[in-house]
Structure formats: C-alpha cells, structure tokens
C-alpha cells in the first residue's frame, strides 16, 4: 500500500481532479433536483435549475444549505434514495434537542471509509498496525468512521470506544496498539494517565494518533506528541457531509487535505455569502459530489478557515484547509461533542429552574472543563442540603443525557448572573485555541 491508500486519486494532477469535479457536480445537482423535493423547491425559489449548472464554475449560482434546512427537513426531507436503500444513520446533536440525522447507503459508507482509510495511511498506518479506536461508537461518527477506515487499511482494530481510561491503557500496552484514534482532549487525558502511572513516552507502543472532532491548538498537539511519544495528526469532518475524513493531515502536518474527489470545498464571506478567493479566511462550505442517500449541496459548516492549493511535499495534490479557527455561531464543541446553549436551557426548564444560567468552558491539562452556573430559585430551594445536592444531581444527569457529556452544575445566588439587554452572554469560553 505504501504511502497512500488510493494513490491514483490522492496524487492526481490538479487538472484531473478539477475535470472530475466538473463532471460530477452537474450530475449531482440534477440528481438532487430529481430526487429531493426540498432541493427542487429551494432551487426554484432561488431561480436556478440543473440546466444552469454546467461545471464547478456555476456552483455559486446554487443556494446555500444550513443547519436550519436540516432541521426543517428532519428526518426524511433530504433523503434522495428510498429508505430501503439506506443501511445506516449517524446523528449529531442539534439545537433544542433535535438532532441532525444523516443517512447512508452502503456506497456512501464505502466512500466515507475510503476517506478515513486515506487518513490512517497518511498517518503512517499499514496492515501491520494495531489501531485503537477510542472515539465514541454509536450515533457519533467518530468511532464508526475510523473503525471502517482501519478495517480497509487492514489494521488490527481495537474498538474500545471512548471512556474507561484504565482499559484503554491496558489494551494499548497489552496489545501493543500503534495508532490511537480519539478526540485530542481524550488523547491528552490518556497521556496524562500514562504519565501518572510512571510510563515514559518510550514505554508506550503508540507511534501515531489521529485526533479530531474538536478544535485543538498546536501547543496541545506538541504536548500530546511529547507525553505519548507519537506524531499527532488532525482529522476533520462533519456528520452532515459524512463524518471524520472529509479532510485529513499528512506527514507534513501543515493543513488538512480535503478529499476533493468526493467533497467540493468553497470559502465564503459568512455575512454576504460571496465566494472568496483561495487563501482568504472565511466560512467553509461543502458540496458532496457523489453521495447518494444524503447529498448536501453548498452546506455551510460555520467553520472558519482558509484553503490553499500550494504544492504539498507529501505528494498529495488535493487542496488543503487550515485548522478551523472557530464557529460562526453559538455552538460549542466541548470534549468533541456539539453543545448548544439552548439544549442546556431545555434541561433547566424541564427541571424547574429558570433560564438564568451561564456556561463556563475552559481547559485544564488539555482537557475541556465544562461548568454550568444556575441560579437558585425559590421553588428549588429547601432547608435540606442533601436535598439540594440531590436536585443538583438530577440536573447534572439531565444535562448528561441531553448532551452526552458531563457538566458540573454550580448553584449560584439569584440575580447573580449578569443580565443583558441584547443577546445574553451565555457562554464564557476561556480556552486558548
């Protein structure tokens, strides 16, 4: 297999990639027009038909899709194949507790797993490697995505899923895992735990890590690389487009190659929607070129980054994206999980608290801290400390089940959270990313 998983396409001349995109895009646009009523209506309202799209140069004529469209069309509104052709769903958290559900045909899964396999090989993975997948398995795309790629590469796959750090460490040591796939904050935690147990980097069999699903800094990368004695690679993706592997880092660790044969990337001005030239910072927009079940056209990721086509010495020719700087809306990514303030609000209201709360996100030892300050209310107050603690526990459990991650709830005095006249300052994020 060597250096690349699919060398012919990964290292294809740029002209060839562009020709492929020019061929795929008009077909894909006609495909969604024919099969998805929601798209047809949206394109009609925008005054554009498939006849107007002759190549990628016409991409700008098409309307954008956003998370709001996904919510409007939930659950089946954007499905382009009969449900009987689908073999899987994956899901991401959405606002007000409504999740985004993405559908996959077997072909879509294959395509996605090719992408994660490319990422594993780019990180030095071969069939001789032991790949421990410590991303969560289940609705979250992290576990299933890397698991599938690991199989394609032919690695011995250890599907530990996330959590139970003692067991993670046991498998890494006992089965000599060489590649670790998880969120960067979990990698940092695993590293810390090794350190506490007295392991030096050279005692740890890992040689590479593929970390994504949350924003992380170069500083954090260096920390993880040092404690685990590995090379750490970034991977990017989103459930709406397929999952991790939409883009991945190569040996150069200088931007992530977007799998352009499947995903067409643009950078736009988030305010005006105008397409920006290469190298300019803006919002990343994706069009899936050959997915069948859930093919999104011009989907706004809200991730802010830049694109570059500068030659990469790894040999891959696909365009590279910089590490996203942050989201253009209020969504928080905490420990790899999407968190919306409105979800927290829902849990508070359901438990008898008012919507007076504040979310504090920080980072201690490379792991995200997540605290929710909630104002005590007359209804929730009692003279009994044990009872107050029990009610707080109910709240923490409710948040955990809504969000999928643990939040620390701190009860504060009434009116102690600053009220705002405009948009409430709900989030204080002190992470330096």
């Amino acid at each position: 297999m060597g250096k690349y998983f699919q060398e012919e396409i990964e290292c294809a001349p740029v002209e060839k990639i562009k020709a492929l995109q020019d061929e795929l895009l008009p077909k894909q646009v006609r495909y969604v027009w024919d099969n998805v009523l929601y798209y047809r209506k949206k394109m009609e309202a925008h005054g554009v038909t498939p006849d107007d799209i002759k190549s990628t140069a016409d991409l700008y004529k098409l309307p954008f899709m956003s998370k709001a469209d996904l919510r409007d069309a939930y659950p089946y509104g954007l499905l382009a194949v009969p449900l009987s052709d689908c073999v899987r769903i994956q899901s991401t958290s959405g606002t007000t507790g409504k999740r985004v559900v993405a559908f996959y045909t077997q072909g879509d899964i294959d395509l996605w797993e090719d992408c994660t396999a490319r990422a594993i090989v780019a990180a030095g993975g071969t069939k001789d490697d032991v790949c421990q997948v410590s991303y969560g398995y289940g609705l979250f795309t992290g576990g299933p995505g890397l698991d599938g790629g690991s199989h394609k590469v032919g690695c011995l796959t250890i599907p530990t899923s996330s959590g139970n750090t003692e067991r993670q460490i046991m498998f890494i040591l006992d089965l000599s895992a060489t590649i670790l796939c998880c969120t960067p904050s979990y990698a940092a935690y695993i590293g810390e735990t090794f350190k506490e147990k007295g392991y030096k980097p050279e005692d740890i069999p890992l040689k590479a890590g593929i970390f994504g699903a949350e924003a992380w800094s170069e500083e954090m990368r260096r920390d993880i690389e040092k404690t685990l004695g590995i090379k750490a690679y970034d991977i990017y993706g989103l459930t709406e487009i397929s999952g991790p592997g939409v883009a991945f880092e190569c040996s150069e660790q200088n931007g992530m190659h977007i799998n352009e044969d499947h995903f067409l990337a643009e950078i736009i001005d988030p305010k005006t929607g105008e397409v920006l030239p290469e190298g300019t910072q803006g919002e990343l927009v994706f069009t899936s070129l050959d997915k069948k079940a859930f093919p999104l056209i011009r989907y706004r990721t809200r991730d802010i980054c830049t694109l570059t086509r500068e030659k990469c010495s790894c040999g891959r020719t696909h365009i590279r994206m910089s590490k996203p700087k942050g989201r253009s809306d209020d969504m928080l990514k905490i420990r790899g999980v999407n968190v919306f303030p409105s979800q927290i609000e829902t849990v508070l209201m359901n438990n008898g608290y008012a919507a007076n709360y504040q979310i504090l996100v920080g980072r201690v030892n490379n792991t995200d801290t997540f605290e929710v300050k909630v104002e005590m209310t007359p209804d929730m107050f009692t003279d009994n400390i044990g009872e107050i603690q029990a009610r707080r526990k109910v709240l923490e459990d409710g948040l955990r089940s809504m969000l999928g991650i643990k939040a620390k709830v701190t009860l504060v005095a009434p009116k102690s959270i600053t009220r705002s006249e405009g948009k409430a300052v709900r989030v204080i994020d002190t992470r330096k990313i």
Partner: protein
Amino acid sequence: MSVNQVSVFLENKPGTLKKLTKVLAAHKINIRALSLAETSEFGIVRMLVNDVFEATNVLKENNFVASLAPVLAYAIADEAGDLDNLLEKFSAADINIEYMYAFAGKERAYMIFRVNDTKEAEALLKSKGLKSLTQEEIAAV
C-alpha cells in the same frame, strides 16, 4: 409550638454573608440565633429572628432565596449535664435530629432542633414533660 426558622441560600464565597446581614441591619431585624451549614459551593444560613414576616419580605425584595422551616426550641439550664438530660428524652422517644444549634441567654441556654416530623416529635416530648418555646418566647429572650 414550633418556631419558624428562616433559611437562606448563600454562595460559598467571601462577602455573601455580609450582604445578608447588611439587608437585615438596614431593616432593624434582630438575629436571635444563627447557624451556617456549608458545602464547598453554597451554604444555608439558618436563623431565628425577631420578626419573621418582615425578614422574609425584605430578603425577597433583595433577591435572596429564603424559606421557612419549623424547628423546636427548648430552654435548658445553662449548666453541665442539662443538654444530656434533654437529649435523653429525644433518645427515649426515638426522635432523629436532622441538625441542631444552640445559644446561651442570660439565665438559660436555648437549644434549637430540626427534626423529621416536628408535630409528632413535639407531642412525644410534651408527654415527657418538655414544653417547647413559642415564637414570642424566643423573640423575648
């Protein structure tokens, strides 16, 4: 008769108790007994005050969360052994004390008890010859 205790939620950080006493002082509310229970993040101040109605009103106006809890107050002799005598009767009646606090007056000492079932406990102790203090009696101490 049980006595109404005022319980107030406070954050466990510098200055929060002072905020409470400032409000009470401004309204000339006299604290007769006070106890503070704390966790690492918050605490509950429990007080007997001379004017329960006024106290709860001004606390509410000043954005405190407060509630009333019935407690039993007993006067004992301010001398060695008398609390033991009193608790002997609690034990005999099998009454569980959730929490208690105490203060000493000029002649006597006053013991405040929070129990699970105030009415039942009061009746049981009464049958053993113990008479709990009324709100007025506490205020007059």
